[in-house]
């Protein structure tokens, strides 16, 4: 496949695939969102629509699960998150195919990241920005996607970072249906694991230690076929880190063993489970020798990608001997 011009008129900040990987949404400093769809015949990405979505740079974008329709959330330096729904009655490339459902404007600072929760948690999203407050919103009424309620606000920083200092914020939800609701939140050089407790409130249950600079990217791996969780981070200190999280119940049983019984009705015993978390730094790689800008996992959490300031993409794969090894290097530098 050939490279293609996105049509954006300024920096591209984020790209996000829909659930099946057939559509990709991009956002940019040009304040526009673009949606491309994959043409299976030509294997090319074709522009489906483009529209001005915010009044400042759009830095993060995400798709909701198809169980809730075709919905996109975007976060911008204009301090708002906007939620968009596709209207198939409108022509493609008309600029009107995506209707704004809602604007969430509670943030006091530029927003950096927005992510929908996995579908089993309902239509829910989390966002974080320069004010250091993690906000979680829910569409409590599935019949009314225009109505979103701010259900959680967590102050992750004592004081927001000074404007003249470089900062970064990012987050990633635990995608597993068989684990208690969790999300990883990166605030400057800290990576925190939050979990919803019995009281329905989020608490920090662990930290991903070792970062010596701003955490630029975090990605929670799908844990298909595994009883433990993996989280990767990309850091300004030049390292890709992979953490292994093991949940254990008070009785010594692993959380996943209990979850075997939860296949039929996941919710039934969720409240009674209060697993503790063991966090282990599985591996640390400084191959980029420079700032690591992004990390992402594949569908099954078996391949990790990292991209760095060195102009290289590295693909990491877990081996039989339980190590992550660089399986491929892709060069972007002439």
């Amino acid at each position, binding site marked *: *496949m*050939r490279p293609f011009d996105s049509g954006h008129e300024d920096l591209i900040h984020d*790209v996000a695939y829909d659930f099946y990987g057939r559509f990709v949404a991009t956002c*940019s400093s040009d304040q526009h969102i673009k949606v491309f769809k994959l043409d299976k015949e030509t294997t090319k990405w074709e522009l489906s629509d483009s529209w001005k979505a915010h009044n400042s740079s759009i830095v993060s974008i995400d798709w909701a699960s*198809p169980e809730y329709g075709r919905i996109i959330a975007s976060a911008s330096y204009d301090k708002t998150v906007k939620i968009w729904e596709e209207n198939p*009655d409108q022509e493609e490339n008309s600029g009107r195919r995506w209707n704004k459902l809602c604007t969430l404007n509670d943030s006091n600072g530029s927003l950096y990241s927005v992510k929908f929760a996995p579908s089993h948690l309902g239509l829910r999203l989390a966002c974080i920005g320069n004010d250091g407050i993690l906000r979680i919103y829910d569409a409590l009424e599935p019949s009314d996607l225009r109505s979103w309620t701010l259900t959680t606000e967590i102050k992750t920083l004592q004081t927001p970072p000074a404007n003249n200092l470089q900062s970064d914020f990012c987050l990633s939800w635990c995608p597993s249906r068989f684990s208690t609701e969790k999300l990883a939140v990166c605030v400057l050089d800290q990576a925190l694991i939050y979990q919803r407790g019995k009281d329905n409130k989020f608490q920090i249950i662990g930290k991903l230690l070792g970062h010596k600079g701003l955490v630029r990217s975090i990605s929670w791996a799908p844990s298909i076929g595994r009883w433990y969780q993996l989280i990767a981070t990309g850091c300004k200190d030049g390292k890709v880190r992979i953490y292994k999280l093991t949940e254990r119940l008070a009785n010594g049983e692993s959380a996943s063993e209990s979850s075997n019984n939860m296949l039929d009705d996941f919710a039934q015993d969720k409240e009674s489970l209060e697993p503790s978390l063991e966090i282990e730094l599985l591996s640390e790689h400084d191959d980029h020798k420079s700032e690591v800008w992004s990390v992402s996992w594949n569908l099954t959490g078996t391949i990790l990608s*990292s991209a760095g300031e060195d102009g290289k993409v590295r693909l990491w794969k877990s081996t*039989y001997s339980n190590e992550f090894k660089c399986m491929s290097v892709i060069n972007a530098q002439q």
Partner: protein
Amino acid sequence: MINQDSTMDQDSNGLLMDVDNMDFLDGLDNGSVNTKNENSDDSLDESLSINGSEEELYQRDSITGELVMNLTKKYDLPLKKGDNGKLKFKLSNLGAYNLAYVTGKENEKLYPVSIPNMDNNKQYYKYITKSFQIYQELGEHRSYDIPTIGVINSTYQKEHIASVNLAMEAIFSELEYFLNEIKDEKISIDRYMNLEDSMIILQCLKAIHFTLDTPDEEKKRENFIIGLIEWVNRSDGEPNSDYISRVFSTDNLEKPVFQTNLFWTLLNQLLLRGLFEQAIGCIEKSRILAILKDICQVSYNALSDLIALLNRYPVDSDESFREWKAMVLELSQTFSNSETNVSGELRDYIEDTLLLVSGDRFKILNYSKTWYESFCGFILYYIPTLELADEYLKLSVERNAIDITSNWEECCASIIKGNIYSIFPVLESLDNCTATFTAAICEAKGLLGNLYANEDEDIDLMSQHEDDNVLSDLLSQKNGIAYYMIYNFAFELCSYDNKDLWPVAIGLITFVPVVNSSTKRMTISELLQHYPYQTNDDIEWLLSVCAQWKLPYVIKSLFTKLGNSMMYEGKTIEAITNFSRASRFDLVKQYSWTLFEASIITGKPLEDEVLTAIVQGNENTLGETGIVTQDILNSLVTNAMKQTLSPYAVLFRFYKEVEEQNWSIALELLIELITFKHLPDHYLVLLITKFLYPIFLQDNSKLISESKVIDIIEAIELKWDSNNEKSQNSFDVVLEADKTLEKTLGDSLDDALREIRSKLNYKLCQEFM
């Protein structure tokens, strides 16, 4: 015997291996194999031709030593040489469609990247499916479970070995067929060579471990010898045609070719590789026999006898080999003890060849250029047994070291040593499908002991508590390498943009015996949610797997997604049906009310045949529509829908009565709706302002009984909320549709309520009067 022309003419071509039959070489020489992957039509080689040298193309990463692949053509790469940049990359759920981009000035391009080694060739999909079928058909023989104590069922053992050996043979044939199919296609040369290397490894594995123990197979020794020779000769294609031509180009009357060292080296190399016909052709083409016949009868006889012996090299049994070898030894001995009329040098050459064929270890080693040539020579001429394989290998590699830069040499040496384990990382890097099914069959054969099974519990790699969870982790080391690879491959298949591979993936997960079914069930349930269904057949398949594994969550998720898709396509009833099947009764209710609202706003029944058929609920009516049959209707209407659509059904009847001017029945139906306890508040406003007021309240000739007025008043008292935003919106919609109403009802809900109350009062008075 492979690679031999049936007729050995005097042409030098007769001395060559039959390259025409070596299909794997086709296309490489003539350049028909493009160095591009099918789905990366402008990849590296193009950039090579435009931009630079082979060195640039095959640059290695300075950190890992891995080959570096360029994102696109070199001149089109986003970062200038020496420049750093904010490069980002996102892996897609579809392995072939990942994107890289640079958050940098003046670069708004997106760079699609496929996961390296992902082959999206249709022939590859077929190869995967065929290999899976072979594995599937192994049935109970997929696991190695042969008892070694207690009552041993020898028939089962024989069956097991025969089945597994046959499966390996079949996998090998499928790989051969696949290579043959793609040789003319536009595929990457790297990919092709990787598959070719896989083939060499498989050929060695098959010959060494899957041939000689086949029970009741008369030709097993023959198959072994042929397999061995095929392996050695497939590996490097030596001696190549140029070399043979060069040897014979020295032939002249003054110094015939047979007096040169090159000739005898070539002859011996052919013999070591088991290329008997080519070796005989070589002797014949050299004209040595004709010349010796006149000058040295002893040498002539020796060579003639050698040709005769080579022509009937025994492959059928050990016994016949012993007889044959005795004759070769006798020939060699006789020649050594005889006087000859040829020069010392030529005599030595002849003697060396005879010694080599009689299994002389030193001659075999001396004339071998590679370790696998001497290994083959030992098997062919020393003692043809694998019991001495270790010894042969040791001697061979001492003389000619293994080329560690080759993908296959070390693997083949490991296979010979019985260290099958170590080949899989290499094989996996060459082709995951071949590696996985090979590992699975090796596991079935019992060739793979579990590396971690017998180690102490405190292995560094595994934390203590993992033992508790071994059965619930698909990718645990304790499951063994074969099952680890099977799961990895199954996962990989789900990243291909091909739904036909999903049954293979699910099948592979199902087959593995070492993981408990709960874990499999959890895994399958997670994976299936990503199944890219398109047709009804796909959905049927998905539902059948869900039923088999009892996965209600996936079914609910599927029907919810289907419901949303239908909604986007404007098929509301089908959408509601799917939401109902997903037990998303909130959505069933919501969209049923949406239909109700849409109908009120338009003031007439919705133009939807299915919906009309449902609310009429009458077979005769169904027949009239000509489209919606009772069966379709039954499949569409769930019990939940019958309930949620009932308000619309009443509304539908209301329209009918209004049309027929049966005002009292129409009023009754309307009041039924107005007083319906589950009616959302804002719909009360809609019903009253849209129908009750203009049709019944404004018209003084239409009387309303006292009890009905009271019912209406009670409903208004209960649900009319002038501050309700939705109610106001509904009222605005009514006013928008009928501008005249604003004059009487006003534009606020309070005004409207006053007017309605006044009219109701009037109706009461009318009734009283």
